[in-house]
């Protein structure tokens, strides 16, 4: 129960902080100014987020669009996922629910009245942008001095209007700007998730009675994301993350042959013997994300599990199309994710360590029309 309360508490606190932050200034006047521009307002980071979004949303960088997706991994079950996201200029937050889907299943039900269903994962995610661009006093005074020279050279009526980029175009003065460092925005992403898994196992080797038990596995993730700039253009994203990961592994399966009454027949019964063991891992991840033209994005990443002593390399390739204004994803989003996982001490064979995942996602925008102000 406490695992349920914690994400709800985080959500309530985060929402309250957001509303408090937006409550500054004169509300009536602010609403008047905002109303005219709010309809068209999509910040630059929105574009970057869309550009570098992934249908998997397994990256450190949170996607900003709500979506429904199906992903399928070779030799494993298919996973259905629903993402609900809400975006503000500095903040992206939302919930997601995913559910393992068996071969015979026609629907995924991550939540029932009793709570999470078996194989379901619930996640709360919060992503904040940090940007504190003010210049130091020394930098600002130097900027004023350069600006004064520019205004004289170009006979500017109101020197107050001269900006950095105006001076950049002047080959005689642009070199002097190098002493002033522009601050770039960056992001922090925090997520907390719970996965429910159920096992049937026996602990008594005499009667082999099965015990049904459910477990909740929490996961916490903290990521730092830095846009990569090439001159004035965002050229990609670089991120570092830490994940505290827990899971439960079932005990060994054994097959028991029991005499069937007094007949000469035997009853074969396969049962998991022993209680599932809890496993924790501290994982560190480094990821680079880049988009080529308008359609293909790659996000190679390297993950190292400290406790599990495992290392994984993955190369997701996304096929992403955006609307002409690049503010929204267009149509079905798809991708393929190639990965190789191995023990640190002994390299796994290519056959054992290699995996492929396919995904198709359909973006939708349930929360997109909501306004907070």
């Amino acid at each position: 129960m406490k695992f349920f309360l914690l994400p709800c508490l985080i959500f309530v606190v985060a929402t309250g902080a957001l509303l408090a932050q937006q409550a500054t200034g004169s509300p009536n006047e602010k609403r008047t100014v905002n109303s005219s521009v709010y309809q068209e307002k999509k910040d630059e980071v929105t574009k970057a987020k869309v550009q570098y979004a992934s249908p998997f949303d397994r990256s450190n960088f949170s996607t900003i669009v709500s979506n429904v997706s199906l992903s399928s991994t070779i030799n494993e079950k298919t996973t259905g996922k629903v993402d609900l996201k809400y975006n503000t200029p500095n903040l992206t937050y939302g919930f997601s629910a995913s559910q393992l889907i068996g071969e015979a299943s026609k629907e995924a039900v991550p939540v029932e009245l009793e709570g999470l269903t078996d194989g379901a994962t619930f996640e709360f995610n919060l992503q904040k942008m940090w940007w504190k661009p003010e210049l130091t006093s020394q930098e600002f005074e130097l900027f004023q001095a350069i600006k004064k020279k520019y205004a004289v050279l170009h006979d500017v009526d109101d020197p107050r209007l001269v900006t950095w980029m105006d001076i950049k175009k002047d080959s005689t003065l642009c070199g002097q700007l190098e002493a002033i460092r522009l601050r770039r925005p960056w992001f922090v992403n925090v997520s907390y998730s719970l996965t429910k898994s159920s096992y049937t196992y026996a602990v008594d080797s005499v009667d082999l009675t099965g015990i049904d038990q459910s477990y909740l596995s929490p996961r916490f993730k903290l990521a730092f994301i830095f846009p990569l700039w090439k001159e004035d253009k965002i050229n990609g994203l670089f991120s570092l993350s830490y994940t505290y990961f827990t899971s439960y592994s079932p005990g060994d399966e054994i097959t028991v042959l029991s005499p069937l009454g007094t007949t000469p027949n035997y009853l074969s019964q396969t049962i998991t013997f022993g209680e599932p063991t809890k496993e924790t891992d501290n994982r560190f991840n480094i990821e680079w994300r880049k988009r080529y033209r308008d359609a293909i994005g790659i996000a190679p990443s390297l993950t190292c599990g400290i406790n599990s002593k495992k290392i994984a390399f993955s190369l997701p390739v996304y096929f992403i199309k955006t609307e002409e204004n690049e503010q929204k994803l267009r149509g079905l989003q798809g991708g393929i994710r190639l990965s190789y996982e191995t023990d640190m001490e002994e390299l796994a064979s290519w056959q054992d360590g290699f995996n492929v995942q396919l995904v198709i996602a359909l973006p939708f925008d349930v929360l997109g029309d909501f306004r907070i102000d």
Partner: protein
Amino acid sequence: MVITIATSASQGKLQCYLINNDSYSKLLVLKDDDLKKISLVKGVSYRFEWHVVGSQDAQYKIIVKVDPPHAGFADFTWEKDYQGSHQDVGGFNFIL
């Protein structure tokens, strides 16, 4: 005297500061679409500074007025459209 600052940003990020140069304290911080006002003191040096950043075409507008009008600060309107990726800075000092 009251200074009123109104900002708007379309498809980009904008951040504005009004800073007291004498005490180096930030009096106002405005982000994107915002409107704030504050009373200023005669003889004190102030800095007005703004930053914009974007990875696509974007439009920004800043309007600053002092009421009642003062010779030390003429009404200020900065409006600019950027094509493609950009990061820009502007600002000036003034004394009322």
